[in-house]
């Protein structure tokens, strides 16, 4: 017995969703981004409870659930804690593949900051290596004001 479903041409509808958003960065995040834009300085906030220095800064500590109001300047150099070299390209990525991401523990910070790694031979990347921030020449107050990190 033939099933009518075997004979139906399947239709596919292509959507065109485009939904613009804007996000307020908040005072804490804005201070962080302005310091990078205007002074090429990286700042974090220290938790009064666990003493952890968060970079990017947070207004409150997720661990201790208290406000974190002490500002601490950290280094623009640090240690590459993890990295990946990505071999595919999609439109959300700022660069074409291969591109590399790293988790960088900046000197003076706890935890790590996520960023791109570039201007280097990706085959030579190693966890534990020293890296430094490369700042963009034109800085606009976004995380892209740090262009990427590169071996120090």
């Amino acid at each position, binding site marked *: 017995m033939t099933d009518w479903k075997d004979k139906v041409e399947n239709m596919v509808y292509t959507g065109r969703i485009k939904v613009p958003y804007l996000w307020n960065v908040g005072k804490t995040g804005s201070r962080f981004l302005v310091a990078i834009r205007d002074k090429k300085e990286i700042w974090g906030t220290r938790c009064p409870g666990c003493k952890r220095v968060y970079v990017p800064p947070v207004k409150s500590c997720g661990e201790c659930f208290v406000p974190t109001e002490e500002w601490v300047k950290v280094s623009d150099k640090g240690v590459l*804690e993890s990295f*990946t070299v990505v071999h595919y390209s*999609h439109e*959300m990525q*700022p660069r074409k593949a291969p591109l590399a*991401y790293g988790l960088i523990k900046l000197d003076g910070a706890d*935890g790590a900051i996520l960023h791109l790694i570039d201007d280097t031979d990706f085959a030579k990347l190693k*966890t534990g290596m020293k890296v430094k921030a490369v700042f963009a020449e034109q800085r606009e107050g976004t995380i*892209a004001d740090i262009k990427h990190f590169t071996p120090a």
Partner: protein
Amino acid sequence: MSKIAIVGVGQTACTRSKIDTFEEMVFEAASRALADAGAEVGDIDNVVTVSNDFWDGRTISSMAVQEAAGSWGKDVSTVEGDGTFGALYGMMRILSGSFDTTLVVSHMKGSESIMNLITNAMFDPIYQRGLGIDATSAAALQARSYMTMSGATEEDFARVSVKNHGNAKSNPYAQLPMKITVGDVMASRKIAEPLKLLDCSPIGDGAAAMVLSNKKGLKRFKKDPVWIKGVAHCSDAFTLGYRDLAKSRALKEAAKKAYKMAGIKNPLKDLDVAEVYDAYSYMELMWYEGLGFAPEGKGYELIRENATGMKGELPVNPSGGVISSHPVFVAGMLRLIEATLQVRGEAGKRQVKGAKTALAHGINGPCGQAHCVYVVGA
């Protein structure tokens, strides 16, 4: 806690690019779960749907699948997250005292959007999203962190892929049943180092459903109950970099609570089978540690010794796991369904002989930010 039972389970096959709509898939899974329970839709007091607006490409996606879940005229609410969390909420609805039975449904059509764009949108828009990070590149960072902490190798990850794709050959619902070797995994295309193609779960479509009941509601169903003996969930930091990616504190905490509730003292011995959320091969080794199957940093020993193979001390992912079928959000519910089938002795060719106590595990958020752990038994 009063006891909650799983009395019906249903799933569609997982495939790439299903022609069926969300509603059609949900109806299929929900109908199968009701049939499995020997029930009619009228036996259901309330419905929980699991959905996500970004994946579905529509706002208030929860409303669109309701009629396929038999919810006209019923109390219905939604969980945005993995199916294990949906099932937990379904339990809570019963435990609130308002209902005796819950139908929980989940669906995913990963093939209709671009996974990388969708999962990029899971990250913080100010500090991380613009860098282009997504689920796979974040997982690659976690894989490397875990290798550094534990000494596990890429070959160890490959062994997980070989085991689970092989197990999937006995699961008629699995998307990627494959007989492969460690060499095949190692030689597969680089995706995000150290992850290669065969370390990554496929994009897929599927739906799943389950019927939950308290003791009072049981008389409506024909199926013997599988009891939820322990369940717990726990979450950790959202932001990549604020959390130790190599160690899953949230899973340890969730497992500890679920084991305490279920009276599990030595999980490796007390459990007969486990289904864990191996979205990427390396995750399974990390979850062994979080679930207490192995000491921290020693998860690779279990895979090297084949202790988690079908004939090992504790078979893990006899279904083929998430690496063989990954309808996002459905995948955790599939773990719970497989655990149920195993305890019932209905798992067909992949049945772990004499399985009485099974573990199911789901994750939510980047790199396993949150974990949900179940222990079920007859």
